């Protein structure tokens, strides 16, 4: 057991993946000498060389498109997109090429590409640096979308993603990069696409992922003081959603609140609400409520605290759910 920040845990996970398999390559802007703007790849180019840790020209479509070509030849490229807001130049390559290749080849060609994206707000950044694009990718068949909420998951999930033969969008909650946590490098990790009950409770289920798991755990702790028992489910994988774990929890509590930073309209909350209603129609005591980013572009950072779901908004929704 060691205590690591999420950033260091990711770095350690990448290092282990590079050591384990010579076919693993990292590519992206500024990931070499600089170690990435968040230092997630710090020291890796020095230790594994420029041929395996590749600084790319400033062109995201090019980064993903060349990764596709490398994967076609048996490599396992792990691509870094510098910020969430800069993934869109690569969107075409991701949705028309990465997501579809296996299907187009009738399952014959796998495309083990991992696309790492630091995502979400809360770090006081300028525009385009705080986006939550997960729904765009989750709606796309052929991709898998995962996100970690703590250092241990970060360490394991990045390795599992690299080992997966499916293309994976790996979302890193950048505001949690410096959160510390225990990492047991000898543990047997949970299966990658399994959700986990991060805290047990009986009254209302909070469904969250990535940066909002911490927020929900805090909310649950606060609620406990008021005598309310909230269960927190950390989805971990956004596509495919682990419906079984979600349904199990909601069938128990009868109430669900989904929490995410992304804009509400057609966000993950919509899908979770639809699935929960389909599966738990008779056990639901209240409609699934959503606490999400408002449906506007991400605002200037000085007001992001008002924009982002926080403990108060979560508890407010819990109150509304219980009032039903």
């Amino acid at each position, binding site marked *: 057991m060691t205590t690591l920040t999420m950033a260091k845990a990711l770095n350690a996970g990448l290092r282990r993946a590079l050591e384990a398999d010579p076919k693993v390559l990292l590519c992206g802007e500024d990931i070499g000498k600089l170690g990435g703007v968040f230092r997630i790849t710090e020291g890796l180019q020095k230790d594994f060389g420029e*041929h395996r840790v590749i600084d790319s020209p400033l062109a995201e479509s090019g980064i993903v498109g060349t990764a596709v*070509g490398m994967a*076609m*030849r048996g490599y396992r490229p792990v691509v870094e997109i510098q910020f969430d807001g800069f993934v869109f130049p690569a969107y075409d390559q991701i949705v028309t090429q990465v997501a579809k290749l296996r299907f187009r080849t009738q399952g014959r*060609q796998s495309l083990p590409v991992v696309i790492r994206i630091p995502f979400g707000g809360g770090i006081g950044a300028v525009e385009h640096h705080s986006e939550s694009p997960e729904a765009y990718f989750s709606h796309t068949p052929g991709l898998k979308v995962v996100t970690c909420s703590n250092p241990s998951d970060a360490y394991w999930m990045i390795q599992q993603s690299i080992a997966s033969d499916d293309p994976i969008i790996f979302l890193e909650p950048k505001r949690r990069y410096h959160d510390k946590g225990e990492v047991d490098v000898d543990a047997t990790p949970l299966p990658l696409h399994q959700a986990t009950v991060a805290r047990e409770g009986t009254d209302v289920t909070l469904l969250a992922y990535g940066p909002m798991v911490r927020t929900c755990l805090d909310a649950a702790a606060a609620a406990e003081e008021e005598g309310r028992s909230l269960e927190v489910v950390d989805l971990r994988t956004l596509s495919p959603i682990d419906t079984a774990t979600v349904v199990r929890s909601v069938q128990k509590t009868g109430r669900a609140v989904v929490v995410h930073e992304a804009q509400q309209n057609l966000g993950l909350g919509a899908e979770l609400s639809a699935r929960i209603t389909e599966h738990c129609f008779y056990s639901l005591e209240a409609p699934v409520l959503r606490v999400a980013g408002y449906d506007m572009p991400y605002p200037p950072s000085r007001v992001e605290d008002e924009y982002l779901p926080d403990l108060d908004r979560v508890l407010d929704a819990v109150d509304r759910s219980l009032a039903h």
Partner: protein
Amino acid sequence: MLSTTTADETDLVQLLTPEGVRVEHPEYEFTGSDEEIAGHLRDMVLGRRLDTEATALQRQGELGLWASLLGQEAAQVGSARALGPNDVVFPTYREHAVALCMGVDPIDLLGLFRGVDMGGWDAEATRFRFYTLVIGAQTLHACGYAMALERDGLVGNGTKEEDAAVVAYFGDGATSQGDVNEAFVFASSYNAPVVFFCQNNQWAISEPMSRQSRIPLYKRSLGFGFPGVRVDGNDVLAVRAVTERALERARNGGGPSLIEAFTYRMGAHTTSDDPSKYRLADELETWRLRDPIERVRALLRTSGSVGESFFCDLETEADDLAADLRRRCLQLQAPGLGSMFGNVYGEQTEYLAAQQQAYAEYADSFEMEAGAR
């Protein structure tokens, strides 16, 4: 000459005139035997015949669409025959003659157009990757693949049998796409062993080359720091010579280059297109005189290196290919939708497995209904 077909003729590498006369070029030379020339003719004739048959199949409703290569046989065969045994091709959707040269079973080319699959051949074994319909996307894949070759130690390693390179095909229209230009950047930056082979057939659907560039396309690479050359795309000898040189350079670690094969799309863009809306018949006439097949026939007839029977046999072979293609096309069935749920992921998801099962049950219920009747 028409504006869209005006080239800096002086820039054009040509080794065989439209009349079938071999000419010298200060830099390039076709060193193949007469037999090889006859082989190239055969490739072109088979390619054209395949194309004609597919067009007919489309007209008869057996294919949903067909993208004809008519007029581009020399560009395709000349470049394909320049490939070494390890070289890999990333095509667009029109390189049927390249596919033939690389040993793709022609029937496999029809699946995409018939709507039964998205490419039926073995991309690995044939070294002919799948068709790409999103304009330009494959140029980046080609570049990445080339970077991977280098990482595999297969570039400039002094072992001719091992060295490999990549050819990325694309059209004149594609040169405007961001992806193609980014591919130029990456190839240049990493000195990747990739030959960018642009078939400038003068048209991108209805838009003339002049909409995409006001200078000859082969000059694009000058802006990215690697060489470009324009070759008479209807001259199979010149195309072969130029591509061979570029591939050799790439395999030896010399980096990328751009070839503009100056040719012409003799047919419609696809069977859905109606070129009479946007281009003049004159243009077609001009280009008919430059037919890539006729000039080789003329050469072979003049040189007498093959007998008349060669031509007859070739016609027969082409007809057989066409007949066989037709017969097998009619049998080409789509696998059921039910089987496709398993092709989305390597590790199937519970969610999709459940959809698959629901679909199967739903489909069964119809069959049962039908059975009950």
